[in-house]
């Protein structure tokens, strides 16, 4: 359980790695809402997975496309 929580926290850090500077008007607490999922243990991990799996998949398929393009250029 503890280990899983750490994994969830790590996922949170991974998300932060892509942080961009924000020049926005007042935020309604979006960050706080997402944090509640990160702090939610196993149930939170499931929600995070559902929230982000499409994005991860998209990322993966983009990379595949890029790799393929790279391979083609080599030959």
């Amino acid at each position: 359980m503890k280990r899983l929580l750490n994994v969830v926290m790590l996922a949170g850090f991974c998300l932060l790695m892509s942080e961009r500077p924000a020049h926005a008007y007042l935020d309604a607490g979006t960050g706080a809402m997402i944090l509640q999922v990160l702090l939610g243990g196993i149930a939170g991990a499931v929600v995070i997975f559902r929230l982000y799996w499409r994005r991860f998949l998209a990322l993966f398929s983009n990379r595949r496309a890029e790799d393929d393009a790279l391979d083609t250029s080599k030959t």
Partner: protein
Amino acid sequence: MRDGSVFRGLSQQASTEWDALTETRFFGRFSADGRLVATEKVDAPAATNDTERWVSFLRHERIPFISYPYEWCFGMLKAAALLQLDLLLAALAEDMILKDSSAFNVQWVGAEPVFIDMASFERLSPGDPWVGYRQFCEMFLCPLMLQAYKDVAFNAWMRGSIDGLGPSDCYRLFSMRDLLRPGVLKHVFLQAKLEARYADTERDVRDDLRKAGFTKELILTNVRGLRRLVARMDWRRRESEWSEYVDCGHYERVDQQKKIDFVRDVVSMRSRRLVWDLGCNTGTFSRLAAEGADYVVAQDGDHLAIERFWRSLSAEGNRKILPLVNNLADPSPALGWRGRERQALEQRGTPDLVMCLALVHHMVITANLPMREFVDWLASLGGDLIIEFVTKDDPMVHTLLRNKHDNYDDYDLEFFERCLAESFEIGRRELLCEGRRIMYHALARG
């Protein structure tokens, strides 16, 4: 406010939520032990013009004296936070939630916290997150962390902003080492970063979360964790100038007894509705005042003195003495929108007896207030006065004047008595410490 009761108008939506609240088990439990302010649904109060706007009205039991978080000590803010979380846990168990987490929703009956905002309760919509989490961090968690982890009192920060201290500012006040302290990484660092990360998002995250299967269990996990975190927090300062004052032996035993007898005699002359004890230290004389008064508001600028006093009052479940952190040379002003959201100290009820024991020299010499100004202010409160004047022959005044040029010509016994006589009728007068300290009972001029 009408006829000594507090009324609140409810919209159709709020009225439905109130009905749902009264059907829960926790409502009865928390109301019975006084942690929820006594409230009943009533017909429209007489002479109200708002019957078209509101569909129903609540009448609340009156809180003896309204106070604000920036006037509380660490233990009081912590107790208020725990009450907020306990109510939230109890509400979640019955599928209700507190929609906000304002510290102003907690008030005090003596040393006991009481939650006053019934309209904060609403039925939980499945899939919704706890919207009040961020506000809980701003108004409770970050201010408590600042004091527990950095030994910086939260009061000035809370008074400086009606919204409290947010995770982003709190994070900037913390060092790398503080990230290892309980709760900082999760609730301060991560929240500050996520706030920045998602500030300009155009996504409806609330809707996204609902679709991804956000459940009540996630809120419960967070709230239980916060409760454990807050319960463990402690402010560890051990000494301050005034918290040790009683033990310092400024008085011979006989003089201390004379002072106690003087105060007790005046207090017992007739019953008082509200007594203010200004410069109360750890509350020896506030307790005497409480023997003959309905309610005592004990105030001191020394946070640790008030912390100790509150802890002892809280341990005994005292409901008559409210201790507040208040620098009398800079008392709480009116704050918020147009200065109307939070009232200045004097607007919240004036005392019929003010105790001002060994305080004048601090106001005049330490805070540089003119003597006449200070006595005029005391008179403006409208009550009788017990005041102790400490002459320049006293070692305590010597201490205050060290390293200072003595240009306090108005700090003079004769001038003090003249100022006092202009605004009050001087009753009993008694010398202590071989005449270096003088007690007065001064009566308000009707």
